[in-house]
């Protein structure tokens, strides 16, 4: 009885509010953790940018790029262990939350959600991609992931010089924007020391500027291009947390697609796959909260349902009782 009660309570929770508070606390933790000497290490699967000197952890891409840029014989020799340890730590962190790292913990993602909230307050319409645009854009993150991995390797074999160090960081908008959380605006500078760094930092600055316009208009604008999201997807099968769909119970009403910030069509269309997590997904669980069918969508930890869609929860979150009352009046 007790169990059912708790389950009902979870299923009926106001997800948006819960999520807001989790995101806020995570943002404080990762953007300002440094002030109270919090350090979760350097293998965190989110864009907790180390260029922000007060970060509470370090985005995994920073150490990864530095490690892969070691001379090839060092990298494949003794240093392989430290690379492996870094990767395993990354996986260990990732396995816990799966892509919910993006939806709940990433400060850069949270920033975009807040910009979206601002837009909403101002009453400006949001933008969407057409399906064809979506298909194309969602490939870009793999190109960025390739940049993260290939450029340091090329440095390691001596094809590229030191000015390519941390090449992805140089073009990453989080590098430009995150330090502003702690009042450091110096990343907006362009580095003229070499032609390469000039081009890379210029791209970074442009990307950061476009980020503001883009995320104002498009929900989670940057996440389509995020190489971390791509890296997550390659190992999402390992994760303990799963987003599952029961196609038999789906009526294809499309509510889940409408609330999806990432415009993932499969969430409504695909009634065959049970594992409905897609590469663009950020595991915000808004789809689960928006689903009006009992157990059609559910979030599992090790096959145990922790949060599933329900008629009751849907009615609660939509304020149906209030609506009905208004109808009566």
């Amino acid at each position, binding site marked *: 009885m007790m169990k059912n009660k708790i389950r009902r309570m979870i299923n009926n929770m106001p997800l948006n509010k819960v999520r807001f508070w989790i995101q806020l606390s995570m943002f404080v933790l990762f953007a300002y953790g440094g002030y109270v000497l919090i350090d979760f290490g350097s293998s965190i699967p989110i864009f907790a940018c180390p260029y922000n000197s007060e970060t509470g952890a370090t985005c995994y891409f920073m150490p990864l790029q530095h490690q892969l840029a070691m001379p090839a014989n060092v990298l*494949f020799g003794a240093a392989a262990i430290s690379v492996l340890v870094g990767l395993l730590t990354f996986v260990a962190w990732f396995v816990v939350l799966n892509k919910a790292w993006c939806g709940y913990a990433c400060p850069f993602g949270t920033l975009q959600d807040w910009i979206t909230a601002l837009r909403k307050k101002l009453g400006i319409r949001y933008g969407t991609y057409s399906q064809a645009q979506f298909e194309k854009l969602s490939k870009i993150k793999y190109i960025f992931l390739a940049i993260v991995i290939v450029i340091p390797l090329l440095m390691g074999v001596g094809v590229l010089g*030191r000015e390519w160090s941390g090449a992805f960081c140089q073009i990453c908008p989080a590098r430009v924007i995150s330090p502003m959380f702690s009042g450091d605006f110096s990343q907006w500078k362009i580095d003229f020391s070499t032609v390469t760094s000039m081009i890379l930092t210029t791209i970074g600055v442009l990307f950061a500027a476009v980020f503001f316009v883009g995320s104002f208009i498009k929900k989670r604008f940057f996440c389509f291009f995020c190489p971390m999201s791509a890296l997550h997807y390659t190992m999402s099968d390992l994760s303990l947390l799963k987003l599952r769909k029961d196609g038999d119970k789906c009526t294809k009403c499309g509510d889940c697609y409408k609330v999806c910030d990432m415009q993932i069509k499969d969430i409504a269309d695909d009634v065959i796959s049970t594992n409905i997590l897609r590469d663009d997904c950020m595991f915000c669980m808004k789809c689960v909260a928006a689903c009006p069918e009992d157990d059609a969508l559910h979030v599992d930890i090790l096959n145990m349902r922790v949060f599933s869609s329900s008629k009751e929860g849907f009615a609660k979150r939509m304020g149906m009782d209030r609506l009905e009352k208004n109808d009566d009046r």
Partner: protein
Amino acid sequence: MVDFVKRDKNDIFNRPILGFVFKNKKFLLGMRIAVALLFFYAVFYGFMNPAKENIFTGAVFWVLFWPLFMLLTLPTFGRIFCGICPHGFLGKYITALGLKKTMPAWMQNRYIGIFLLIFGWWGAYYVFPGFLSSPLGTAGLFAGMTAVAFVLYYLYKDMSYCKYICPIGTMSRAYDKLSFTKLETYTESCKECKTFECASSCPYHLKPFSFAAKNHTDDCTLCMECANACEAVKFTLTKPAQILEKKFKALNAEVWAFVLILAAIPVAMTFAHGLERSTIAQEMIWNKTAAFFGMGEYGVGFAFMYAIVLSLFFAVLGLWLASVVLKKDFNTTFSTLGYAFAPLFILGSLGHTLEMFFVKDYATLVKGFAQAFGFAAEAVPLAKRGDAWLHYLGFLRWVGVIWTLMLLYKRLKLIESTKIRKIFGYFFASLLVIFFIGINIYVGYVFKVYGIKAAGHSHHMGGQSISQRPSFVKSASQPADDSSEVLDFKHMIKATDLIYFTCSDPRAGSRNSYTGGMHGGNPMAVPSQNVWLVYGENFGQNACIGQLDGALLLYDTSHTEKPVKTQSAQNCTAYRFDMPHNGYYTLFFHSLIAKENILHYKSAKLEFLNGNHGLADVYEPHKSQPFIAEKNKIDLIRLRDKKEDSFFYTHSSGDLLRFQALFDNKPLAHADIKVFTDTGWVKSLKTDSEGIAEFNIIKDYFPKWPEFDKRHKGMLLISLSYEDNSSGILNAESYAKTHYTLTYPLFFYPNEDEYKSYKEGLIFALLALLLASFIVYRFRKNRTKPFAEVRYDEK
């Protein structure tokens, strides 16, 4: 599925030993694991030992895998190497875990693999001889291909990598047709089958039950999954190249592979390694072309290009002329007759390869394995160059020519035409063969008439050396080696000379020898630093001090005295110390020289900041505080700035430096301080009443922009001097005055403001912001344009 079948006599699965070798699941798995381990170990070994001394990596790939596993098996048993190839073996599992997408149409192109083989490998092999076949190049190549293969296996289904991208995939598929084996099924038994286990078990998504009827085996790599899934699969012995005697669905890519490989290997080898050795090499057209373009050293690369162009020319021209006389369209003629060129390369190269194996490569192989697995082995080559029986192997090339001509005859039978047309067609189609015979005879002719250059035979294994990190040899067991010519320290150094520490080797021209940080090799090892003591009248004229007359003291981060290792070479001594912790390591040196009634107390100081990344390396402010040695008569303390809040602090031009001079641990007022830079700038200062002097580091680095280096090290030397009237006797020389000097070196980088700019960044950002906003605005305006409303006046 068929449970039992009465096998033919010539079914290999019916043979006691061969049947086990080719079909037994456990044996095949064992072979695959062994080959995969060997493959990855060789790659790993190549990265670990990139120097030329590593013969193992080369031996595995260029003695074992390519000649023995590929060239020897392809015209005999077929693509059996593909069946145990590490990529395919692991790829099967990766595909099972992977995304199983369909490979995009543009990648489903066998020419990708062929071009990778011909230009990516062979082209690069001729243009940059030695690099790709060096241990590091080999390991890098195979590591890279492995990474590509695994990514593609992960993404795409049905082992598409093997079919389209693998450089030797299409090649194996093509030459497999010469073999005397064929995988097919007992078609009689198959008739009752409704379940098609052979097809469903095939990782390549092929249909083995159709092989017999189709008369070829598609992309089958002989992995024998089907044979283990159904008993009706057979692996028969046939006549060599039996497939080529009948019609089958030809693939133009295979014919191009035959021609291009013939061009890239035997023809180009004949040019680049044959004619290039003759005394008239410079007269050859490729060397003349290279000289014409002023790229004389790339003659061999041009030879490769000529080989490709000439071979393609004769192949295409010949087959086109044949198509004209046979009155058939070019495509049909090309794909039908082109298959005859198959034996031309493979038998020719096999002869050469086997000869090299007996003469040299066998010994290399044994030595390589002995090197890698650490056992002792004496390898004697199986034959000496010039042994009579080796010449028989050379005949294999002519066997290849004869076989080609025979195949051409058989393939010609498949084309319908009149007899007289076929005779002319035969002649034209064999133009490539005639060209091949021609260049072989021509080489013999050139060698006979003009002779061979003195230089030896250059072979695959000749790699250029890849420089390794120089390793520092501790000199504990090896005393100063120049004992014969020890220079007299006191006479060498003049009274006015500066003695100071430097972190860069004064013998080498290099300025940069900072080895702190995590990139200095083994991350587990304790980082260490070399320093040298040098002297000179001016800063920058570093003459190295070979033998020391004075005291050298090292204090670590916790201010305790530590030993210093020394190594002398070429009359120059390097001092090396370990830096187990982060923080400042301080070195002191002082010596006494009495000259002309003056005692010169010369001392040098170095503060070296070690910074390492690591969890244990937490910055604590007290660790950056200067160390004041009480033993030192005279000292110069650099007062720390508030900005210095990490172990990675560096000085940059524009920084304010503050020093306090101490004498007998008391502030030294009104002492002379001189500041030098390595560019020749000098500044004189006096300490104030508290012994403090301060100055800004100047900017003296003005390169043209593209040559700007933000890690350019500017060198500073601060020297403190002071004189008092203490007198005494040193080494039987009395003095009335004492002159104290202390030097303190420091390096600095260009200031960030010199190369980083807000202005451009903000302008660009603003422009991008405006442009993006404008685009969004325009875009929305277009979309929200109200419909032109049509109104009717209803009055």
